[in-house]
């Protein structure tokens, strides 16, 4: 019994669990040891026993210490047992539950059965001797007795413990994060006061807003991430960054646009560009501002905004108005079409298909039928037929 050493019960990297069994009591020779029945685990390298009530009480014996094993059948009032004969303990052995023992064998008593399977597996491991092929560092196998505060990672209890730790950690993080939010709320209150004051002043036309207030206002906006509230500056002349970005976009988007018939919605562009970039993603704002400069910079693409507000990027060579003529043909052929039907026929996204049909309606080529059945477009017979 002195061959056992204290252990954390954690498996090493090359060590794998083979089988485990609850309700096993260990006998030192013929005597019961003073521990209650526990869980016995067989790994590729060791035999580990852990107290069921006190999980930190965990001991192990390397399989290399085992000489041979034999079965002992159950009797009346006696559980089935496995007798394990052991080599003498090594002199440099780590501390264990027993300093010395007169017996060179132990018995494993299976109070909750499972002895047959365990014996089979143990015999297998003894035959295969897998521990010889996958050495584990000696010092890492053991540990100086049960340590409070260490998270045992073995078994369901280990998992539960880990989850609890994680939950506590998350809780802490969230509280920290909300600290920022409460700071933001305090600032927001100030901002609201200031903006109300400014709004009132404007309403009453009571002189100018003092420079101090303007500066305060701007600084608040800056701290919230709105770089420059004066839109004329950002739109009109644009910044160097947006100009560069616009040129870059022109390069990236040329091929995809040609593939898609010369027109793409801005959301498609956003996804495409950011996917290509991987890191250093573009914000939607930056994308829009860069696109607004495309035409001014005489690049081969342009940004177009439809009446409905949908934004698209078009090749300069793309003439949406001409596409309308072909749309009219398609609709006339089929009598009438919904946006979805048209999209499917032509192979476009429904969003862009709808925009094309709406443009055709605006130009007077199509008219609409809006009913519970949905929105359909017809050739504009009001104009063509008297």
């Amino acid at each position, binding site marked *: 019994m002195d061959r056992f050493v204290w252990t954390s019960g954690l498996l090493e990297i090359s060590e794998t669990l083979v089988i485990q069994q609850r309700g096993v009591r260990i006998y030192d020779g013929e005597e019961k040891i003073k521990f209650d029945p526990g869980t016995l685990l067989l790994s590729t390298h060791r035999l580990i026993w852990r107290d069921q009530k006190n999980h930190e009480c965990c001991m192990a014996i390397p399989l290399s210490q085992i000489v041979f094993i034999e079965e002992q059948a159950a009797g009346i009032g006696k559980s089935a047992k496995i007798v394990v004969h052991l080599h003498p303990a090594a002199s440099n052995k780590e501390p264990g539950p027993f300093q010395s023992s007169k017996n060179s064998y132990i018995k494993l008593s299976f109070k909750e059965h499972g002895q047959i399977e365990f014996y089979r597996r143990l015999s297998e491991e003894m035959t295969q001797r897998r521990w010889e092929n996958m050495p584990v560092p000696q010092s890492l196998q053991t540990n100086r007795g049960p340590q409070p505060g260490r998270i045992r990672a073995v078994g369901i209890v280990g998992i539960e413990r880990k989850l609890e730790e994680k939950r506590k950690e998350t809780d802490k993080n969230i509280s920290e994060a909300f600290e920022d939010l409460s700071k933001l709320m305090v600032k927001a209150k100030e901002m609201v006061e200031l903006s109300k004051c400014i709004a009132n002043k404007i309403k009453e036309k009571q002189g100018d807003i003092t420079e101090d207030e303007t500066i305060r206002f701007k600084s608040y906006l800056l701290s919230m991430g709105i770089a420059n509230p004066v839109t004329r500056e950002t739109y009109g002349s644009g910044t160097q960054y947006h100009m560069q970005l616009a040129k870059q976009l022109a390069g990236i988007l040329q091929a995809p646009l040609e593939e898609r018939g010369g027109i793409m919605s801005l959301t498609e562009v956003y996804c495409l560009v950011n996917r290509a970039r991987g890191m250093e993603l573009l914000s939607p704002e930056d994308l829009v501002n860069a696109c607004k400069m495309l035409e001014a910079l005489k690049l081969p693409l342009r940004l177009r905004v439809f009446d409905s507000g949908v934004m698209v990027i078009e090749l300069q060579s793309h003439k949406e108005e001409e596409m309308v003529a072909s749309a009219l043909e398609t609709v006339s052929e089929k009598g009438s079409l919904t946006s979805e039907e048209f999209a499917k026929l032509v192979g476009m996204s429904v969003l862009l298909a709808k925009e094309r049909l709406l443009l055709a309606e605006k130009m007077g080529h199509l008219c609409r*039928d809006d009913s519970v059945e949905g929105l359909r477009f017809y050739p504009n017979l*009001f104009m063509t037929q008297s």
Partner: protein
Amino acid sequence: MAMSFEWPWQYRFPPFFTLQPNVDTRQKQLAAWCSLVLSFCRLHKQSSMTVMEAQESPLFNNVKLQRKLPVESIQVVLEELRKKGNLEWLDKNKSSFLIMWRRPEEWGKLIYQWVSKSGQNNSVFTLYELTNGEDTEDEGNAFPSPPNFKKNFLAMPQGL
């Protein structure tokens, strides 16, 4: 004397029952509606209607096509007719209206022409004679019923 009413081609065109957003298209659409309303009322000899009746009438509700002109759009059509002089609201709530498929001025002119033709200037007529007399039956589709008729007299050119 109800003839079978011949619906115009627009009546079988689903977009006819949706108010068109395109301004030019809408103009054509409303013009078609106006003439349809007038010819319908003329044939069915209907000179007044409520908006509720209008909604359910086959005029604005094409059951076979499964389309009906929504009430807001009906209001737009009625307003068009009013602007043209073919419609008058009978109440402040705009729930019932008078349809004049010939405007009062047009009637006035007609009456005058008829009277002159039959060489009966400077005679006195009763309203009854004018509306029910044998001579008047071939004029258009007979003069409209008394409530309207007064208006027509008032609209007649000064010479009478």
